[in-house]
């Protein structure tokens, strides 16, 4: 049975924790709005980019000589995985969900006897993966210093990928991130970026779109465009990720605040009960003392 003093101390400590989680929730909510706005603003660019590439790849007739970034190296031996996570914790299952998704992919690669290479973006992912997959991690990038997600950072990652591809260091490249659905739901995603996965052509308007004029020719445009597309995809993933991170943190902190509130209620009841018990006990002592006189 904890003493009255212990209980009082616990209540104050839980209350101050609750204050912190509440503040974090507010901050996350404010940041979430901004992140969501940014994600929306960035969407037209990646959509247009996709459209152009789709149109271009449709008009490429000579599939054999098409840029390798588009059609692949023809092999599938070395897989490069880019795992995008947050730099901070305390955001619920956000980081763990990405890692879980990535790990199941890693296991598949390893069991098929293919070579695995990992690049982690964001320090939390590195922390969680280094225990088990240290020998596979080839690079660990973190953008802790940059306050906002910017294209410049994404481009850096993109350049690293291109450089590795040109040196034939991998055949297939996939990125892992959380897609922002709403504040409560974030879906861990696995997306292949090299070779470019041709989307199931749901919009079948290929007939009328093929009469573009290209300057210079298709191949040259494509080989100029594809590296940019990789940076764009990474940037998109980073934007989605940051919105997801804030959403996830907001939900987690909301839960924490609620739990703390429940705990405070329970402790207060316990505190009041034991205070009452102490009073009753004292009264009984006084009364029985008076009776014995």
């Amino acid at each position, binding site marked *: 049975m904890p003493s009255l003093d212990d209980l009082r101390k616990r209540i104050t400590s839980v209350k101050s924790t609750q204050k912190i989680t509440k503040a974090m929730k507010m901050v996350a909510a404010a940041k979430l709005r901004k992140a969501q706005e940014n994600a929306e603003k960035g969407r037209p660019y990646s959509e247009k980019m996709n459209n*152009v590439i789709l149109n271009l790849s449709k008009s490429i007739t000579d599939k054999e000589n098409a840029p390798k970034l588009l059609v692949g190296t023809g092999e599938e031996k070395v897989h490069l995985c880019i795992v995008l996570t947050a730099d901070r914790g305390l955001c619920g299952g956000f980081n763990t969900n990405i890692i879980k998704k990535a790990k199941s992919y890693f296991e598949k690669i390893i069991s098929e006897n293919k070579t695995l290479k990992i690049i982690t973006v964001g320090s939390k992912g590195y922390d969680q993966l280094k225990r088990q997959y240290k020998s596979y991690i080839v690079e660990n990038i973190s953008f802790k210093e940059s306050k906002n997600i910017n294209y410049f950072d994404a481009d850096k990652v993109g350049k690293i990928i291109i450089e590795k591809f040109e040196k034939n260091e991998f055949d297939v490249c996939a990125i892992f991130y959380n897609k922002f659905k709403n504040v409560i739901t974030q879906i861990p995603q696995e997306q292949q970026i090299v070779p470019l996965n041709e989307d199931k052509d749901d919009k079948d308007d290929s007939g009328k779109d093929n009469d573009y004029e290209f300057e210079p020719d298709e191949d040259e445009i494509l080989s100029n465009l594809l590296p940019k597309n990789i940076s764009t995809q990474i940037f998109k993933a980073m934007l989605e990720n940051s919105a997801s991170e804030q959403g996830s943190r907001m939900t987690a902190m909301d839960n924490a605040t609620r739990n703390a509130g429940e705990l405070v209620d329970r402790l207060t009841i316990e505190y009041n009960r034991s205070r009452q018990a102490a009073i009753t006990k004292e009264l009984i002592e006084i009364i029985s003392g008076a009776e014995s006189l």
Partner: protein
Amino acid sequence: MSNLFNIDIVNPEQSFLSKDNVFEVLIPAVEGEIGILKDHIPIISFLKPGIIRVFSESEEQSFYVEDGIVEFKDNTLSVLTSSIFDLKDADKNFVSESISSAEAELSKDNIDDQKRFLLNHKVEVLKSISIN
């Protein structure tokens, strides 16, 4: 009949410019400047460093771009670029910094002719901006 068309300039972070009343756009495409008027045939090309000039009914705007892709289709011109700024709010320091970094790049030996050409061009354009 009106001779106006739409232009959308987007960079990765946001939609930079969107207008529906332009009648001519000059873009610095990699194989030379292209002037685009209404009902141009569909075209895809990419940019070299240079100035985009947008002529609309009321005004003329100029933007500096470093690279990017242009697509013209159904009377909509889309420009995708990661580096663009309005000449009106050109930052002197930024411009001179870009010039010196491009010149530093030029002085390296291991660049190929195409890159050398682009860099030379970039320096030229940037210098013309800083003079104005």
